């Protein structure tokens, strides 16, 4: 599986905001923390606002805040706003019939892999992801 930048930036932003739903952060705050492009993140934030997962707060001290349900929203919910997560076969334009059964078999295998990938991502809620991330940070701090 290869996550595109949009999904990755969205996960940074959503997890950052969902970690404290009362807090408002600007695109610059999030981009600086994770060392990512503010310009690209701004586009991602527009998508997240459009989906209803994030709310834009206008005015002085405005920014974004998490508007979803941390217990129900899954990693797949976020990722699917930006990509389909479907494997692709890089097929030549003029394949011959001889390759068709092999391609059909490979498609059936990649569908199996895609189903598993989605099933895993669809059962990890933001709450679980935040908890695991926190444990990882604590373990890294203890290890220092």
């Amino acid at each position, binding site marked *: 599986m290869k996550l595109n930048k949009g999904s990755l930036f969205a996960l940074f932003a959503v997890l950052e905001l969902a970690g404290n739903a009362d807090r408002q952060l600007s695109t610059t705050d999030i981009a600086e923390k994770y060392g990512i492009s503010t310009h690209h993140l701004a586009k991602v934030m527009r998508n997240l606002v459009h989906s209803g997962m994030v709310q834009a707060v206008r005015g002085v001290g405005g920014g974004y805040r998490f508007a979803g349900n941390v217990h129900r929203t899954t990693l797949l919910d976020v990722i699917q706003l930006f990509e389909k997560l479907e494997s692709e076969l890089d097929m030549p334009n003029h394949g011959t019939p001889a390759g068709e059964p092999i391609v059909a078999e490979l498609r059936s295998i990649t569908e199996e892999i895609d189903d598993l990938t989605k099933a*895993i991502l669809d059962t*990890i809620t933001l709450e679980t992801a935040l908890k695991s991330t926190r444990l990882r940070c604590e373990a890294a701090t203890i290890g220092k």
Partner: protein
Amino acid sequence: MAMKDPIQIRNAVPTDLDAIIEIDDVGPKEEKPAYWRGIFAHYGSGEKKDRIFLAAEAGGEIVGFIAGEVRAWEFGSAPCGWVFAMAVSPRMRGLGIAKRMFDEICRRLKGAGVTTVRTMVNRNNKVTLSFFRSQGLRTGRYLELEREID
């Protein structure tokens, strides 16, 4: 004086079976009485450390159950704990009952000498899968495979 815990996790007893069958929302209803009687006969005595069948009781009512056992050397797997059934009454969800039951079965499995717990859940059962994920379970070393038998 300390308040009595409103939720008790204890060994299942024969009088719990009707409530357990009612809460169990997986599989065909008509086959459940025989299935659960068999499960109770095998796991329900509470006498064997490696076979565990627990019920969660609140206000005199059964509101959840969990069952598991120690299995050893299936396809070369070292002894590990298996949780093969768990459910909480829909009206009692979100109160931490599944976590309490899971913590208790893990404690007992550890007491029976194993350090790994394993389960298998239908991938469409998002509620149960999300719960186990939240408890730190991840895809294990074994893959479940299946096919239709002609």
